[in-house]
Each structure stands twice: as structure tokens, then as C-alpha cells.
């Protein structure tokens, strides 16, 4: 029994590569989201991807596969949160109301304990957004909640190497402040239109310049981000609560052609038909009571069901720290309590959000070829008594409730809010 100083093992644990031999999770009830539930299912993963999924009776397990016994447990895709503030991030400052040049990428602390808590809640991908209070507070990041040494370990890149993320905007009372911030709703819309019109002109100059470098406008980081939004390369995630504010967002989106996701949408149940007709997806939050601010006075458990009925695409979000990431599944359950279908509620914490983040080809359901992001639960995902037992990202286990260090993040207790790797601690044995 030798007592030694040791660097946090968690740090080292982050740089583990996906297993080479296949891993089979067998015997559990599988909720693939793509297709009906499988009472006795098998999931086979290898090199961070899903190899096979199906009923035990008809799904071959490759020779040499490691097996995890999931009898009595429930297996489903890793949860996707379309609006979160984990990572101790910040965004725009108080200088101007629109700051499209500001990137959350440049502010995230990957050792923030809230990332571990999100893993404990079963979240494997989160849209981490700069904070509130601006008409446009900056560029968001879609993160894989791997155990990371630096932000690069958590990024999601497309085949060209582009970093996945969107733009965060807001209206209503959120961005109302003293000048140069807007003092009214109409002023808010005017300021937004002014900037997007500038961006249209900027885009036009680039188009006209063509291959002639001498005619290219000076590079403008703000305009570049807005052009990306108008070109559909960056989805605009728009904080909006009141029914008329929601319609204002749809009006702006039509005028400038940016793809929009409606966030929070507290009054969404009042204008569900208009939302569905616009095809704009919704990212909603379910809160324990109405109010807290005027624009959320009618926020309700019924929103998910009402939007589903109208035909809108509905995802859920935590807005962590508004809802703690460990209670993400609870939101879906409360929506079911108030009339949403179980199927669409589970879709709303997985595949709907994958679609909202343009990542539906990689994540959101258990299908061969997709990323091996999945969670094991002790029971039904919509039951208060169920706990997330394990969370896997790209075929690597990032949370295990049976490990006391991980359980601390799941239930709380002394040290649960400390940054991981912040302090050197004692261990009794070092392997």
C-alpha cells in the first residue's frame, strides 16, 4: 500500500482510442430510434462505429468480440442536446448587440465539471452556445462529449475539415439593454436587418469580384459569418419566446434566407400551425413552472405535444444551467405527461436534435455505419427511477456509474463541481 502523488487519471483516460476488436452489447432492451424497440437486442461496435444492430436471434456476433451483458438494462443512442452552455463558456461582450465574429471555440474549458455531468446524464453531443443578452452573441460549437485534453478533442469536423457549429441569435426581451443595444422589439429587428443587408452587399461584392483578387472586399469576420448563415452553412439558433417574437424570427429568416431553429419557443403552442408551415424545427425546454421572466410566462409542459400535433420537428434542450444536463431525459418525460407521444419524445432527445444540428447521418440513432454513441440505462428512459449506467462516445466509455469517481458527477457531492484535473489527488495504488 504505497501512497503516491499521481496526476489525475481522468486526464490520461481521455486519450484512449477506439477498440480494435469488436464490442457486443447483448441482452438488453434496445431503443434504436430508427425502428421499433427490440426486446432482446444486440449492438456491435468497432473502431468507433456501429457494425450491426438487431434482435439477438438474428444478429451475428463476430468471433473474438468482447461482450457486455445488458440483460435487464435499456440501450439507446447517446442523447443530443441542441442548446447548452456547459464548458464555462462566454460569448460576445457588452460592446455591440451583434457579434458574429465571436466564437465559443475560443472560450471553452474542456475540464469544466459540467461536461462530466452532461456525460452522466447520457448526453454525447451538445450544441454549446455563447450566452444570452445579444441579438447575435456569436458562433456555436457542436461538441462530442469525449474526455478531452483540449477543445480539439471534442470538435466535430466534416470531411473537408470544417468545424461543426451554428450561430446564436435572440429576440424579445433577451437583448434589450441601453444603447447601442436595442430598447424595443422593432428596434431589435431593424438592427438585425441592417447587419444582414450589409452582409448581402458584402456577398455581392465577392460574387462580382469573381476570380479578380483586386476587386475582393477587405476580409470582414463579421460579414463572413453572416454570409455563412445566409448560404445555409451555419444554422441560426434563435432564442425566441413570445408568439409574436417567434413570427418575427420566421419573417427575418424568409427575408434573408438563413436556416433557422426556433429555441425555447415558450409560446410555440399558440402559433404551432405557423411554425409547422414554416418547416422551422423547434428546440424546446420543459420547465418546472411558468414565469421567471415575462416572455416565459406561458411556458408549458404541453408545447412538445402541441408542436408534434401540428407537424413540426421537435427537439429538446437543457439550456444547462437552466436545466441540469442530468435531467435531460426528464424533460422528454414531462412532455409525454402533457400529451406528446413517447416515440416523438425519445426522438426529440436524439434524432430530432441530430437533424437540427445537421448531424443526422452520423448520430441520433443506432444504425450500422453511424458513430458508436450510446447509453445504457437501468430501466425505461422516461422513468424517474432509471439511472444512466454507462455513456459511450465513438465506442469509448466516458461515464460508468459503477465507478465512484463517475458516480460523484451523477449524483453530486463534495468535489462534483470542481474542474476535472484541477487538483492533484492521492491514490492508494498506481498500476
Amino acid at each position: 500500500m504505497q501512497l503516491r502523488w499521481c496526476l489525475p487519471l481522468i486526464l490520461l483516460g481521455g486519450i484512449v482510442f477506439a477498440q480494435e476488436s469488436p464490442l457486443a452489447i447483448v441482452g438488453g432492451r434496445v431503443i434504436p430510434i430508427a425502428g421499433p424497440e427490440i426486446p432482446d437486442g444486440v449492438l456491435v461496435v468497432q473502431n468507433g462505429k456501429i457494425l450491426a444492430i438487431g434482435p439477438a436471434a438474428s444478429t451475428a456476433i463476430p468471433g473474438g468480440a468482447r461482450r457486455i451483458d445488458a440483460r435487464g438494462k435499456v440501450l439507446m443512442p447517446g442523447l443530443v442536446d441542441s442548446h447548452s452552455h456547459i464548458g464555462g463558456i462566454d460569448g460576445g461582450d457588452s460592446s455591440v448587440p451583434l457579434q458574429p465574429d465571436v466564437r465559443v471555440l475560443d472560450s471553452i474549458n474542456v475540464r469544466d465539471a459540467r461536461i462530466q455531468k452532461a456525460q452522466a446524464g447520457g448526453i454525447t453531443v451538445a450544441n454549446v452556445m455563447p450566452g444570452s443578452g445579444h441579438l447575435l452573441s456569436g458562433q456555436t460549437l457542436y461538441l462530442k462529449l469525449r474526455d478531452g485534453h483540449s477543445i480539439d478533442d471534442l470538435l466535430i469536423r466534416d470531411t473537408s475539415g470544417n468545424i461543426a457549429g451554428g450561430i446564436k441569435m435572440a429576440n424579445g426581451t433577451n437583448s434589450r439593454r441601453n444603447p447601442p443595444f436595442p430598447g424595443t422589439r422593432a428596434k431589435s429587428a431593424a438592427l438585425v436587418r441592417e447587419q444582414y443587408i450589409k452582409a448581402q452587399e458584402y456577398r455581392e461584392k465577392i460574387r462580382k469580384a469573381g476570380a479578380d483578387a483586386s476587386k475582393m472586399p477587405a476580409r470582414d469576420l463579421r460579414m463572413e459569418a453572416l454570409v455563412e448563415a445566409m448560404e445555409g452553412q451555419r444554422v441560426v439558433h434563435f432564442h425566441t419566446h413570445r408568439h409574436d417574437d417567434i413570427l418575427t424570427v420566421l419573417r427575418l429568416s424568409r427575408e434573408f434566407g438563413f436556416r433557422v431553429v426556433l429555441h425555447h419557443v415558450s409560446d410555440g403552442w399558440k402559433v404551432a400551425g405557423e411554425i409547422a408551415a414554416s418547416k422551422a424545427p423547434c428546440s424546446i425546454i420543459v420547465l418546472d413552472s411558468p414565469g421567471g421572466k415575462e416572455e416565459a410566462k406561458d411556458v408549458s409542459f404541453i408545447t412538445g405535444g402541441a408542436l408534434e400535433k401540428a407537424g413540426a420537428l421537435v427537439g429538446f434542450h437543457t439550456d444547462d444551467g437552466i436545466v441540469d444536463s442530468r435531467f435531460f431525459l426528464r424533460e422528454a418525460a414531462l412532455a409525454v405527461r402533457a400529451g406528446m407521444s413517447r416515440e416523438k419524445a425519445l426522438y426529440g432527445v436524439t434524432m430530432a436534435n441530430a437533424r437540427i444540428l445537421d448531424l443526422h447521418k452520423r448520430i441520433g440513432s443506432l444504425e450500422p455505419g453511424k458513430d458508436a454513441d450510446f447509453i445504457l440505462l437501468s430501466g425505461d428512459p422516461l422513468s424517474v427511477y432509471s439511472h444512466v449506467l454507462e455513456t459511450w462516445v465513438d465506442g469509448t466509455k466516458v461515464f460508468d456509474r459503477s465507478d465512484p469517481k463517475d458516480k460523484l458527477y451523477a449524483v453530486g457531492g463534495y468535489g462534483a463541481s470542481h474542474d476535472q484535473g484541477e487538483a492533484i489527488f492521492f491514490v492508494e495504488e498506481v498500476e
Partner: protein
Amino acid sequence: MRSALCLLAAASLAAPAASAQIAVRGETVYTMSGGPLRDGVVLIRDGRIERVGPAASTSIPAGYRTLQAKVVTPGLIDAHTVVGLSGYLNQPSDQDQRESSTAMQPELRAMDAFNANERLIEWARGFGVTTIHTGHAPGSLISGQTMIVKTSTNNAEDSVLAQEAMVAASLGGLARAEQGKSPGTRAKAAAMLREELVKAQEYDRKHEAKDLHLEALARVIRGEVPLLVSVHRANDILTAIRLGQEFKLKLVLDGVAEAPLVLDEIKASGYPVILHPTMYRAYADTENISMETAALLKKAGVPFALQSGLESYVPKTRVVLFEAAIAAANGLGIENGLASVTIDAARLLKIDNRVGSIEAGKDADLALYDGDPFEYTTHCTGVIIDGRVESEAAR
């Protein structure tokens, strides 16, 4: 004509509970005065529980309106909230839970600010909450008094169970005053509180000209009114216990996020605990909060109840049913979870002679559910307060 209509409307709003005779039949009745009753019947007459027993041996008399439910519990008790003083819109015009001009204002009465028609009271009632201990909020060294009241739509004064339930104080980070005012540190907060309690002792001894401020504290000094101390960090909990013992107060520990670190000391003090909401946010003084503390307190034999607490943003209140559910799922279990928002809360608040369990003679406060009350997807299908059906909408 118009005034007559107003009078009529007022009369119907303030109408006393109709002395309806009601029978509630539940597949499971958690009486909280014994084990759960399978297929039980609760008879209600004149606002009180007339009888409770198995359906087989409890016949429903003619003329009783019968309500059915999967599960019946006593009306839930929220052992500490601020709803009614803190309004749901969160605008300056509806926030009366804390006046911050000075650090200590024990003379502020909850009754003088309580809005029985506040939407958050209706919200809590919809999930089965029938009694609340509400009033001045944590956040000042002494913020004012608290009260205990039913959540009924019947606005009458007899829905008040205690006008001056406790005096609400805070220590630690919660007591720190804004903008350079005192107290600016933990030690200063304790010093100021001690000084004020000494003044109240002197006042009580000398019987000088009536002083509302010291009068309220003198009742605390005499042990007539408990001092409710909101406190989270372990060392602040010990400070609260130290002051409670110095002045021989009836102390109630409130919040106590770091209770697991000083469990032995809490237990030895004999002071009861109104525990923080299970889903409370972890930051600053509450950074070490745990969902398993309720189970830990139960195991240690510390008397405690759960609360919805104070929320200053979104959501504007929590619901004690939901907080008990998470505690139940994290080691406390269903029956102990229910106890923490019914009979244990009633005992802690000293109102168990009237509410907290389903027993003959007690107030007819019941909550009806279409399944396990703690399950996310279960609905509260009925709420009865003082024998009056307040709500039958499924929530």
C-alpha cells in the same frame, strides 16, 4: 347593479368550503399513519376526514360523491417556499420576498405580502400541494417572518395554519449584503446576528417601549418561534448550530447543501432540517450539493422535510412533488419520499395535528394520482382541500 354583481362575485370567491360529503376510493391509499392501504376508502364530511379504511369494511353512505384514483396521498406539504410573496412574472412589482434596505428585518410579516391568488400557488396545487410554509426569502441576515397556509382558492383567513411560523435568517454566502453594505463577510454576519439576539434578550428582560423589530426576535429568544437559518456550506452550518446553542434557540436548519460533511454535528444538535430541493443548482455555496442527501439524513435519523426553495429566475418555482421524486429515486424510496412532503413535514412545522396524514379528524386534504405519484408521466387527477374539490384537471 354593478356593485351587486361584484358582491356576488366576491361572495362566491370567498365562499367557505362546501360541506360536501365525499368518498375517495383509491387502489392504494398512502395514509402515512401506517403502511399503504390497498383498495382503501376515505370518507370526508364537513371538511374533515371522517373515516379511512379498506373498501371491504368501509361502506360509502348514501349521498356521498365518490371519486376514484389509482393512488391517494395526503395533500402534500411544501416545507419551505416563497410563492405568494414571490410572483411568477419576476418583475419588481411582484417580488415581495426580500426587502434589502437593511440586513435584519424580523418585524416584516408574511401575511402583509401574501397573494393567495398568485399563479404559482395554483401551479403547485395542481400537482397535489395543499399546504405551504412560505414567506420571506433566504438572502438577507434576517429577511422577515414566514407563515403556513393552505393553497386553497378559498381566500379566507382560516386557511392560515400559522401566521408567524418562523423568523427567516441566512448565514454564509447567502447573508452577504449587496453593494458594500454589512454584512460583507461570514464572520461579520454571525457577529451582527449575535449582537441583535443579545439586544432581544435585553429587551425581553427589561420590557421597554414596544419595538416591533425586537419583539419579533424576543419571541425567537423565548423559543416561541423557531429561527429558520438558511445555510449551505459546512462551516456555516456549524456557525448556525453554534449560535443556536449559545442563545438556546429553537433552530431549524434550512438548505444545508453540505450536510453530508457535518452529518454527525447536525444529528448531535437535534435541530431538524428543511433540505434543499433535490434538483437545486450546484454553484457557489451549493456547489457540493447531492441528490442522495435526503436518503443520508433518513438513514442517520435526522428529522427532515423537503422544500421547493427559492428560485430567482427560470423556473420561478420548483414543485416539491418533483423534488421528492428525485430524492425517492436516489435512495430515499417511495414511502420515505412521500413522508418528506407529508407527515414528516407536518411534524417539523408542528401542524401534524391538522395535516400530513389521512386519519379521522384531520383536515380533509388529499391528492389523487393516476399512478405512482413520483413517476414523471403520472398525473395528479384531483386535489381536495378542507373537504372541497379544488381541481379535477389532470396535471
